[in-house]
């Protein structure tokens, strides 16, 4: 399962999640890194543990009207509306170039029905070069999108088990933070067969233009990301770790290695870098370098760092 890991990789930085060997624990978060290839002028994709590509649906999606983004204190709101080229176009036009890099390719998927999810998963499973599927059950932007699945434990479980049954690939389930108790969701998707869990997706938010008394975003609400949400995300990873049996992948406002280490120490086996890619397209590679430096300086290994928070 998965692809060849570069032999030069530092073994102390490597991690295995759901049978996939990652050269380092740093991936790029879906929706913030395009299909990866857009970043080749600015960063070395071979330095990344993995690339989670922009969310894919069965058919291409046009996305939301604009304005779609607005900057907020230490963060941003987005309501892109899951615009994407569709799974077939991705497999034909993007994947062949992407799989040449020595990094794990994870396909993020979403659908409006369980059947949609299953079909997208099946097509990805039949194509060469995808190491795992990350299921988006939590995107808060589209009225007909994943929000129903992401906030209801039994609906979430249905999607996970359906995707699991349609694909030979390991399944990562990405959780929404817009729930009362994240532990309930962790247990539900785990029992349904998730091989790993990534969290958190964006927090629902909104900004109002007070002069016009109108919402800034065309869709009124959007998903908040960036360093503003990091403490919430770290807390949720730590809570998830209390009950999770499968590995966790933490994300939410990671800007540098220090931020990433918080997630790892809280219990994440790996991390995803998101909004930071917009600010510095080389962010994720720098995070990986920074974690390696920390591990060397502390004479430790990634494995020993995961969930190593000392309380009291």
């Amino acid at each position: 399962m998965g692809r060849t890991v570069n032999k030069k990789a530092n073994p102390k930085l490597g991690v295995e999640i759901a049978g996939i060997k990652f050269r380092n624990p740093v991936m790029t978060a879906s929706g913030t890194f395009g299909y990866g290839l857009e970043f080749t002028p600015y960063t070395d994709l071979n330095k990344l543990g993995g690339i989670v590509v922009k969310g894919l649906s069965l058919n291409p999606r046009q996305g939301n009207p604009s304005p779609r983004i607005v900057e907020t204190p230490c963060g941003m709101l987005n309501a892109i509306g899951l615009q994407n080229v569709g799974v077939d176009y991705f497999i034909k036009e993007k994947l062949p170039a992407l799989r040449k890099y020595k990094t794990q390719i994870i396909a993020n998927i979403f659908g409006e029905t369980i059947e949609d999810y299953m079909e997208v998963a099946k097509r990805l499973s039949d194509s060469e070069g995808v190491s795992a599927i990350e299921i988006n059950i939590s995107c808060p932007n589209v009225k007909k999108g994943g929000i129903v699945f992401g906030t209801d434990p039994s609906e979430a479980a249905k999607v996970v088990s359906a995707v699991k049954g349609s694909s030979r690939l390991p399944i990562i389930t990405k959780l929404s933070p817009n729930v009362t108790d994240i532990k309930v969701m962790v247990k539900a998707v785990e029992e349904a067969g998730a091989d790993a869990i990534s969290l958190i997706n964006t927090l629902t938010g909104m900004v109002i233009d007070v002069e016009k008394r109108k919402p800034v975003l065309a869709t009124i609400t959007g998903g908040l990301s960036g360093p503003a949400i990091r403490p919430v995300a770290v807390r949720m990873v730590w809570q998830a770790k209390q009950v999770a049996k499968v590995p966790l992948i933490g994300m939410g406002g990671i800007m540098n290695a220090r931020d990433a280490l918080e997630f790892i120490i809280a219990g994440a086996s790996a991390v995803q870098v998101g909004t930071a890619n917009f600010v510095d397209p080389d962010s994720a590679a720098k995070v990986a370098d920074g974690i390696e430096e920390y591990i060397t300086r502390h004479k430790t290994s990634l494995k020993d760092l995961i969930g190593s928070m000392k309380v009291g």
Partner: protein
Amino acid sequence: MESAAVKILYNKEVAPKYFKLGLSWKTPPIAPGHFVMLRVSDGLDPLLRRPFGIYNVLGSKGKGTFKGNGIELVYQVVGKGTQILANKAAGETINLLGPLGNGFPHPDGSKKIIMIAGGMGIVPLHMLAKSTEGAVLLYGARDKKVASMAKDFKDTKCKVKIATEDGSVGKKGLVTELLKTELKSDSVVYACGPVGMLKQASIISQAAGVKCYVSLERSMACGIGVCLGCAVKAKTHNEKENKNYRMVCSEGPVFDSEEIDWDAL
């Protein structure tokens, strides 16, 4: 396209809240209409880079595309990000991403070039003026002080006509009125400025059967076509990628005005 830490050569106020920023940068080839993203602060607020049009390539005598040892940007202080930028001094370093986007299609010489700019819209057109001859610039400015930017066009082979809102210099009124009188059937129009002005320029040009290229400005997070935040609705459907939206950063910022759904902007 590259990410570079560059030194500020100068940062001076040339009209109230209008600044010229010189950056030392051994540039890749830059075409009129290209832009850069600047990170105005190393802190987390503001978090995102800001897009800026390129006004000048320093130390270059190119035509069409320019390579030089620096660039000059012109910006207006409108919010937190540009205020931080305004406080920076010569010698400080700033991180730049660029050159980004697609420039204006280079005029083939068969048409009479009309450039129409509103306020800060003058920025990319200055680069275009330097690489063309016999063009006319129609410049719409709030007042005399802003209109003084047009004096920079003296070093181009370009005739300038001004309209100001307060009538303090040139014709009183909207710059699009100047376009109506200037437009001929053998013209080609290059426009940059506020959306309302661009829409009017597009309508006027289209009615006259004249091609009009517009440079758009939208809020952006990444500048490289991945966040999909700077979308504008197009009138035409892109068959290959099956989409109706265009990204201002990676598919623009220059568009054929007929491609844009102006009512959705």
